[in-house]
Each structure stands twice: as C-alpha cells, then as structure tokens.
C-alpha cells in the first residue's frame, strides 16, 4: 500500500518547508509526495491544472491524500478532481487537516502503509496532540452538548498473558464502535505514542504486553460510556480469561494420500531444527544483509510466479506475505539497530526475526501463530543467503519426513532428489500438498507424530502416494512390491505419454475432453496432447504491475496462448482476483472476509472499464481462433446477464460482428450456482466447475488455512452432490467441465465422468495420465460408482470406493 500525498499551497516556500519538516519524520524514501503551490511567476496562488498533474504524479494506484492550505487551494483542488481520470479520482481524498500538522502525520501514516482513508483520518486528527498539549479548548469553542467538551481519562493494566494482541484489540475496537467518542490510548509503561482506539492496526501498535499500563483519554458525547466499557473489558481480560489453551494442530494419525506416485529411498529427516547462524564474515554488514534480502526477494518472486501458475494467484499470495516480512520496516529497524551495535549481519537478522517469531508463536491467536512459521521461513532463507549452513532441511537427497512443510519449501522440491514426502500433519488440500502434486513429488500426509517419529529413525522408507502407505524399513518382499508398483506406474505413465495425442475415449466410446490449465503460453506448450486449454488464468497479465494492461497488450498475450495451442480451443477466464490480493491499480476496500467479498465477476462488474478492455481483447482474438470466455465466481443469473451485456458491448466496440466460434460459460464455484444450474443453462455453452473454490465454499473451510484444510476435501459427498446437480441442470446441450484440482486426480476420473462431467482440465503434467485414466472408464460402471459415492457419509468412504 503506497498512498501518495499532494501538498497544495498558495506559497511554494511554505509548501517546500512543510515537506522538509515532514521529511524529518520519515525514514527511508517515504511516500510519493508532490507539491502544487504558487504561480509560475513565483507569486502566491494555486493552479487546478498543476494540482491535477501533482495528483497523477503521486498516484501509485493506492490513492492520494491531498492537503491544502486555504481559500482557492480548496477550490482549485476540488476543480482539479474534474481533470482526473475516473479511476484516479475515485481514490483521491481531499483532506481537511491543517496543512503543517496534517502533512507530518499523513507522511508518517502513508510511510507506514496505511490506506488513503486512514492516512486522511489520521491527518485530520493531527491537531489533537497540539490541542491536548495546550489544555482544554476555551469554553466558547466547545460544542453545545453539555458533556461533549468534557474529557474522560483512566488507566488500566493489561492482564492477559499474551498481551493486547489481535483478538483482544478487536474486542476493544468493537466495544467502542458506534459511540460518539474519540478514544486515545497510550502505553505508559513503554512511554509510547498515543493512538486511536478506533483503529485496530493502531491499537496493535501499542505493543501492550502483560503488566503494561495503558492510559485512556476519551472525548465526545459518549466519552464516559466509552471509558466505562473499556475498563469493564480490561477487568474481564478482554474476554481472554475464558479462553482455554488452543488445541494442538489436528494430527489424525491416519495417513492420507496427498500426491500420487511411489517413492523408495533413504530418509532425510527434517524436524524443528532451524538453520544455524553462520559465523561472522567481515565486510559491510548492512550491505551483506541487503544483498541477502535482495536475493531472497528474487527467489520468493520466482516461487510466487511458479505457484501462481501451478495453483492460482490467490494461493500464491502467501509468498507476497513473506516478501513483505522481508521488507518490514519494524524488522529492518531492529536489525539495523543491532548492526549499528556492531553485530554481524547474520546474527542481527536471526536475532531480529527470532524476536518476532517468538512473539507470534506465543500468541493465543491461531492466525498469528501460523504466521510464526512464515517468519521462520523468511529468517532461514536469508540466513542461507548469508552463506549460512547449507539447507539442511530440503537440500539433501532422500525422502523428506517432517511435521509440516511450508509452501516455499514445497515449491522448490525436485522429484529427482526428493522421491517422496511424508508429513506428520497437514492435509491433501494444504498449499504444500497442492504444490507437491504440481511438482510431481509423491506425498503422504497426516501420518501422525508416532509414525513420523518412526519414519525419521528409519534407514529406508517406501511410500505410495496413491494409497497412503508408508512402510518403515520395508522387508525384501515389501520392497519388491513397491518396486513393482513403481515400475508399473512408470510403464503406465510411459504408455500415457505415448498416447497423449490421441483423444480420451472411454471403453464404451464416450469422448471426454482433456484440457490443460495454463497461466502462460509456456504452460500451453507444456500441455502436450491436451484437447484444449480448458482454463486460461488471465491473472498473469495483471500481476506485478502499476497499471492494468491495455487492450493491445492483453490481445497479444491471449493470441500467444491461442497460437501455442495451434488451433485448439482456449477458454479464457476473465480476471479472477479479490480483496485478499488487491492489485496496485485496483484499490479495494479492506474486507473482513475477502473470499466472501468482491472478487471474480463481482469485481469485474464493479470496474466496467477493466472488464470492457479484457472482453475486447478476447473478442479480437476470437475472430481468429476458437475461444471461450468464462466468467468466474458467478452466483446469480443477473451477474451472468450483466457480463453477457458487457460482452455484447465489447463485440460492438471491436466492430467486426460476433465471432462465429465464441462460446460463453461460467465457473461453478458457488454452491448456489451449482444448485441453480438449470437457470443458467439457457444462457451458457458450458459450465466449468472449479472444485477448489466449490469445496471451500461448500464445506465453509478456507483452503489456505491448514487448521481446517482437512475439511475442504473435494471428494466430500456434499461437493459431489453439487457436481451432480450442475450436470443435471446443464441438460443435454451444455457441456460440464471440471477445472479444479480434482480433475487431475486419475482416481477420480471415473467418478466425475459418472456424475456427468465431459471435460477435465488439468495441470500440464497431468494431461497424459488423465487421458489414460479416461480410457479405462466404462460409463455404465462409472454411473454406478457415482451413485454409490453420492450415498457415502464422508470423503474417506468415497475415497475407499475409488481404490
């Protein structure tokens, strides 16, 4: 989040001096800051055109806060808004804060990554410190309400063992919401700054640990009530006293197949061991640390891009979080202070990160604890880059046995060096498991602590990622059995590769299309034998940039994929992002639950120019190649109607008539859409079931949250019933496809075909094997299998039917 600031003043000298003053408060580069002040001839005055240019110059896509002095500055700034593009104007806030005080606070707030509205709000409160210092305002300045001018003060002591962390802070902010009270909090124990009680992020900055004393100052009509509620909450330990220790992560002790394939080999045990801090190396320590961070940043970007292609942009966001941590100003300040004190770069980084990790690991909040693993990951990566001990966790050859695997670790595993992965915890739907499948590394997860401990001690392990078998120190007979399986599997895959170019036809003659999911032209080329590109994730063109790609650029990208597919159909999914991963040029309101918020088609319809550009690019390509357009996250028929209108407009804008071979479809990811398939059917050519999202919405279990990922099993009979409902609603004329993870599961092919699915779109590496699996299917038997699966009580029962 980089909010720009524009200073509008009658006087250039005044503006420059105010900017210099604010600059003293910001370390590093600070936010983009532009000045529009004075007239060209050096006289006093403001110029709306210059202000408009300054705003455009300061805008990095996250909005701009404009601070003005008086009179024409305000009028000119308002007029300047009329000169801006609609999308820029939407994210500009004209802030009524006093210029000097407001600018100082705004610069600090923006440098801290606050969104525009918050920067403006903080700036507007900038006078509070001064008015607080100078004492109560004169009586005549008070508002008419008798109690409004009164200020209430109090103090409380933080009683919770984990301090005022996210959950109690949320309770605090929630308790004050709706009151006519301006509540300010200050950590007296650490002599910290005063922060607003209305802002969760600000309350978090109090750094209030157990035993710290917090001063409360409240103004406004409900000041007394606000203080009363706060003290009552504090007395009650913010509701934390009733909180029992969080349960240990679920460890089923029941091995679950997570990535198909056979792995036999020596054990490479990776436990909780952290990377050792390398010995001091002479040199410019700050430079060494910066170089190491830069290297890790590049690496994370590579991993992120790969993950975005393999598993989608939303999941890849986890690597962005790690990248953010790498540049976290607080962490850098801490490490910097240690460097200044003469500590070696590696030790300074390790100490700074250990402290953050310790704080998070001790937190009662589940999310914060989960972030501790991210911190550890980032810590270790930088230490390795600092020439530390070679990567003991994953660098060696052998079957990796660990409690958990981070996505970053999973993303770089090489099947040639890591024959298999065995995890004590995790689930087949965790990020790490998804990445392992994409990498082709066999894996069994959830084996439990006991089996994992035995496995760590073993000399040799035999792992079957299709059945979930993990055999510790197999006897010769078992070893021979696994080798035979591996051989059969290799043979099966070779056979599949040989026949990749042939159509996938079931034994009884039903053709099932097998497509490839692609995020780039390279993916399209990698999907050897695919009948079509059944899912083109167009997000790749939109990530990592300051502005949206224009029509020409998008057209070129889609055309490259169409050409790579050489006349085979491509299904272009329109931009599918949401508030969990906002794009620089698409500022979005923060959402408490972005997966249930403005994403997919909802976002596209809220940003008509963005959708219009993309559809025009698609239509242009559709004149020359067989193209499907597919709308994501559709929940209602009115959304489809609006999207189709936008498509009609795009056809008109391109001006060459409707491309003859342009088909239209929707993703079925929302359970309601599956159940209403018949209502959508007259207006689509195909449905494509995104089983990943359909599963998480059906089971109300977020895929990215490993604590509930086990629930989010696509083989849950509830999910299968929705697939069956989609196929039933689709009728004869509408093709039903599956483009989620489940489509790539060879064992699920018969089940899906039995449910009525006639197209499977999979990762490039799975095309051949899925085609081969289709060839083994007998439709009548598949229908019986589907009927049986629908009566199963749970995913485990379904899975046992598939074997």
């Amino acid at each position, binding site marked *: 989040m980089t909010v720009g600031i524009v200073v509008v003043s009658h006087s250039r000298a005044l503006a420059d001096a105010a900017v210099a003053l604010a600059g003293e408060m910001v370390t590093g580069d600070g936010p983009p800051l532009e000045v529009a002040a004075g007239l060209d001839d050096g*006289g006093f005055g403001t110029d*709306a055109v210059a202000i408009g240019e300054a705003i455009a110059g300061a805008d990095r896509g996250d909005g701009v806060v404009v601070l003005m002095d008086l*009179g*024409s500055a305000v009028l000119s700034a308002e007029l300047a808004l009329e000169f801006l593009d609609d999308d820029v104007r939407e994210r500009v806030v004209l802030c009524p804060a006093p210029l000097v005080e407001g600018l100082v606070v705004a610069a600090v707030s923006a440098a801290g990554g606050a969104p525009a509205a918050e920067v403006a709000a903080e700036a507007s409160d900038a006078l509070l410190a001064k008015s607080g210092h100078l004492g109560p305002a004169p009586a005549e300045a008070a508002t008419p309400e008798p109690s409004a001018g009164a200020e209430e003060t109090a103090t409380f002591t933080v009683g919770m063992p984990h301090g005022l962390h996210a959950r109690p802070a949320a309770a605090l902010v929630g308790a004050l919401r709706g009151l006519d009270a301006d509540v300010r909090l200050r950590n007296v124990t650490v002599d910290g700054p005063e922060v607003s009680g209305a802002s969760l992020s600000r309350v978090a900055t109090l750094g209030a640990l157990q035993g710290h004393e917090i001063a409360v100052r409240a103004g406004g009509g409900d000041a007394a009530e606000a203080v009363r509620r706060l003290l009552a909450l504090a007395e009650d330990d913010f509701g934390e006293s009733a909180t029992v220790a969080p349960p240990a992560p679920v460890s089923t002790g029941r091995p679950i197949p997570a990535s198909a394939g056979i792995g036999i080999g020596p054990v490479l045990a990776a436990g909780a061991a952290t990377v050792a801090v390398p010995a001091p190396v002479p040199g410019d320590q700050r430079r060494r640390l910066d170089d190491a961070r830069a290297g890790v940043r590049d690496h994370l970007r590579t991993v992120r891009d790969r993950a975005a292609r393999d598993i989608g942009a939303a999941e890849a966001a986890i690597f962005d979080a790690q990248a953010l941590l790498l540049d976290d100003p607080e962490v850098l300040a801490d490490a910097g202070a240690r460097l200044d004190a003469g500590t070696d770069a590696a030790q300074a980084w390790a100490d700074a990160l250990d402290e953050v990790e310790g704080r998070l690991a001790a937190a009662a909040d589940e999310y914060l604890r989960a972030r501790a693993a991210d911190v550890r990951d980032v810590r270790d990566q930088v230490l390795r880059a600092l020439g530390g001990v070679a990567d003991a966790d994953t660098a060696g050859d052998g079957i990796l046995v660990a409690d958990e695997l981070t996505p970053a670790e999973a993303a770089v595993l090489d099947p040639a060096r890591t024959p298999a992965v065995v995890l004590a915890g995790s689930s087949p739907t965790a990020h790490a498991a998804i990445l392992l499948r994409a990498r082709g590394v066999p894996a069994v997860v959830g084996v439990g602590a006991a089996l994992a401990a035995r496995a760590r001690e073993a000399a040799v392990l035999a792992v079957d990622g299709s059945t979930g078998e993990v055999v510790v120190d197999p006897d010769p007979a078992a070893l021979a059995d696994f080798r035979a399986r591996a051989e059969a599997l290799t043979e099966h895959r070779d056979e599949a590769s040989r026949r990749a170019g042939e159509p996938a036809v079931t034994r009884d003659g039903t053709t099932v299309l097998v497509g490839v999911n692609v995020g780039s032209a390279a993916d399209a080329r990698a999907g050897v034998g695919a009948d079509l590109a059944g899912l083109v994730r167009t997000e790749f063109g939109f990530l990592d940039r300051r502005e949206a790609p224009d029509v020409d650029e998008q057209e070129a990208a889609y055309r490259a994929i169409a050409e790579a597919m050489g006349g085979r159909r491509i299904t272009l999914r329109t931009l599918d992002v949401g508030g969990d991963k906002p794009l620089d040029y698409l500022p979005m309101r923060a959402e408490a639950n972005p997966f249930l918020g403005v994403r997919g088609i909802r976002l596209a319809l809220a940003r008509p120019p963005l959708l219009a550009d993309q559809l025009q690019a698609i239509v242009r390509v559709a004149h020359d190649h067989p193209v499907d357009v597919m709308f994501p996250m559709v929940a209602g028929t009115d959304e489809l109607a609006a999207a189709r209108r936008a498509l009609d407009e795009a056809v008109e804008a391109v001006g060459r008539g409707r491309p003859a071979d342009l088909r239209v479809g929707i993703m079925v990811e929302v359970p309601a859409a599956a159940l209403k398939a018949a209502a959508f059917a007259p207006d689509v050519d195909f449905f494509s079931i995104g089983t990943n999202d359909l599963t998480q919405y059906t089971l109300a279990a977020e895929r990215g949250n490993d604590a509930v990922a086990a629930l989010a099993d696509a083989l849950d009979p509830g999910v299968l019933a929705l697939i069956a409902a989609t196929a039933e609603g689709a009728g004869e004329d509408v093709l039903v496809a599956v483009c989620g993870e489940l489509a790539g599961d060879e064992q699920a092919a018969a089940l899906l075909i039995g449910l009525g699915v006639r197209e499977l779109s999979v990762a490039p590496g799975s095309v051949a094997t899925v085609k081969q699996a289709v060839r083994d299917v007998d439709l009548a038997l598949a229908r019986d299998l589907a009927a049986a699966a629908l009566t199963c009580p749970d995913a485990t029962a379904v899975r046992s039917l598939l074997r």
Partner: protein
Amino acid sequence: MADVDLDTLQRWLRTFAASVAEQKDALTSLDAAIGDADHGANMHRGMSAVVEGLSTPPADPATLFKQAGMTLVKSVGGASGPLYGTFFLRMAPATGGAAALDPETFAKALRAGLEGVVARGKAELGDKTMVDALTPALDALDAALSSGESLASALRAASAAADEGRDATTPMVARKGRASYLGERSAGHQDPGATSTALLVAAAATAVAEQGDG
C-alpha cells in the same frame, strides 16, 4: 435577432478583459479592504492570458469557453481562478457544440456557468460573493427573454441587475472567501468578486449590442 456568433463571444471576452484592465486598481483596492488585495491583479493576469489565447481562434463557442476556463484556472492564482474557470468550463458543454448560440442557448449556458460557480464555491445569495451579482443578472436575462425582448435588450437588463446586485453586497457580512475571516468588519465594503462579475455581464451586453449594430 441573430444568434450570438463566435466573433461576438470573443469580443465579449476582450471587452471584459479591457474592463478588468481599466478597473484593475479599483478592484484591488476593494479587495484590500476585506481580502488579500489581489483580485484586480489576479483577474488582469488571467484575462490577459485569455485574450492572448484568442490569437489562435477557437473552432466554436464550446472550445472558446473551455480554453478561457482552463486559462483562468491556470493563471489567476486566487479563488477567482477556479470560480471564473468553472464558470466558463461549465458554459462549454451547455452550448451543445453549436457554431452560434441562439439567445436561449446563450442564457442556458450562462445559467450552467452560474450553477458551476455555486457548486464550486458553495456560496448562497447574501454571502457577499460574485453569486450576488450573477444570480439577479441571469434572472433578469431569463425574464426579459421570455417576455419577448431581444438578447441585446435582455442583456442590458441583466447588466443593470448585476450592478444592483453588486451594490447590494456593500452592507452584507461576508460568509465565504477570505473576507469571511473579517466577520462583521466586512460590512460596509463592496464585494470585489461581485464587482468584477458586474463587469463580465456588462461586457456581454456591450459585445452583443455591437453585433446588433453591425
């Protein structure tokens, strides 16, 4: 009555610029009493730039107004910049792209300009601003046109109403702009913005009368 052509509209702006140049010191001294003593100089700088821009003749009235508005916005500096700038910028689309303006269209465009000024400055009648001259002027213009008078005659009525409105600002207490900081002390002084606005309306009357003569 012929429509107001592009020449006449340009003459309007030249005439207004000439009046402002002539009254520059008077406007500034009015502003010195209750403001920041820059209105005459600012408007003179702005209108000189507008006239300079006329050396490349605009294609139609809409272009003329847009060009004048943008020039004022860039060159005036004080609050008159965005206010007069908005006035002309809002007139531009109200011409509907016509090559010459019939009286109703001209009146409608002026009204659109006034609405822009009100929206921009958030001033109401009686706040001691240019709105106090412009509003009665356009009311008089509309009334005269709807009773069948010629545009020249209607603009004369408008100019008289603007002058009256300007004079009426003298006893007012300013509630907008720099003068509002003076509170009661602003009473007893004629508002400089209303004064320059009266010049603007008078210039229109003069320019259109000349077209009639020609």
